[in-house]
């Protein structure tokens, strides 16, 4: 009986460890990198959410006269990564959910006209727990 319980616990550990490893940044990185096209890669952020932490926030420094591409990819079925971009005063600039057309986009281009710290808030559609990635690339305007 004890052995059965032990086996059950080990199985649970195995399932949880496999579950953890499924959110691999490297795999997502290669799948998302193509979306940057001819933008120069600057940073990547892993978006791993759960019920306690459905939102993640990242800081990034953006420079005036550069165009930035924020590209997202998800490995969670039917759940896209959504990003909100805020300025240094935490005022929303835009979201990758385009309300007028009820559309989720996976690439945002931001033409930056003032240098400083910006905030990227990332989460999965419906605040679902899951895994994804956000990449930032730049190009001169």
């Amino acid at each position, binding site marked *: 009986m004890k052995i059965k319980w032990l086996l059950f616990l080990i199985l649970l550990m195995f399932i949880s*460890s496999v579950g953890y490893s499924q959110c691999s*940044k490297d795999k997502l990185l290669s799948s998302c990198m193509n979306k940057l096209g001819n933008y120069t*890669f*600057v940073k990547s952020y892993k978006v791993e959410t759960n019920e306690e932490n459905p939102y993640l926030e990242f800081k990034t*420094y953006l420079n005036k006269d550069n165009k930035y591409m924020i590209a997202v990819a998800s490995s969670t079925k039917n759940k896209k990564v959504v990003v909100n971009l805020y300025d240094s005063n935490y005022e929303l600039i*835009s979201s990758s959910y*385009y309300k007028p057309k009820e559309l989720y986009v996976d690439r945002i281009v931001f033409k930056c*006209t003032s*240098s400083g*710290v910006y905030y990227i808030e990332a989460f999965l559609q419906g605040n679902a727990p899951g895994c994804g990635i956000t990449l930032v690339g730049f190009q001169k305007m």
Partner: protein
Amino acid sequence: MIKNLNLMKKYLVVFMTIITVIWFGCSSSDDNGIEGAIFDSIVQENATVIVSSEVLNGILNAVPSPVEMTSIIESSGADYNEDLLNPSENSDNYSTNYKLAINLGIYGTDMGYLNMYEKTVKSLLYLEKVKGIADKLKVGQFFDFSTMKRLASNKQNIDSIIYISTLSFEKMNNYLTEQKRGHISALILIGGWIEALNLSCQIEKITDNKDLRDRIGEQKEALSQIVAVLEVYEKHPLFKDLVVDIEKLKKAYENVQIVITKGEDNVTIDENGMMVIESNDTQEIKMSTEDLENIIKVTEEIRNKLIS
């Protein structure tokens, strides 16, 4: 029955061993294939400063990327000038963790500068130095010298070289913060930023370029992020001199004003389904010639001290 039980126990031991290997293999937190933590003297140095990797990453991410800063220099039209870089032979002079980490950042920025001007052969020499210093800091595993060497043989691979270099530094920094060695990561970033600022200052001195001058002024905001990093580590013995130096730079920037006028953003979806946001904010940098000259002087002094 007893025989079966013994057999089952044997299977259990084998199974548990496999599970343990998988468990620790999968728990490596940044997908870099490194199993377990590296505990060395560097960890001991950090014993007095405890800061979560999330908080530290948040602060470090707010420091401008050296790739972008060197790209700004290149697009200003300035000629390539090798004399502005930290000579590669200096790398043998660095032995303390402080000097190693700071100069890892400095060489990283120099590498970015070389890549922006497509000096792939020279960039490879700097990568060799970066790898050497990173090895001494026990983070050399993030720099794939052989792949970079292969790529550097063709200038058309410059985008791949920039991508791999940027990613290597990112992985290294994430790893360092997760391994409670964030102070090393902070020093690398500060070294990289000072070098990029110094390159901008030195080129501005030669070219008197308005764009570059504005970029130097804008760094007041970046400097406040550097100060935030230093506030975390101000009690750390490794940061003692740096805190004093950055304070001098903060003073030099005191009169610089960044005036931002908010405008209405224009958001559209283009024919490829891509969202395009055009910001209509405007930014003006107010900085006197005396202030600029002082910033250039102080930056040069700090940077020369760091590479010595």
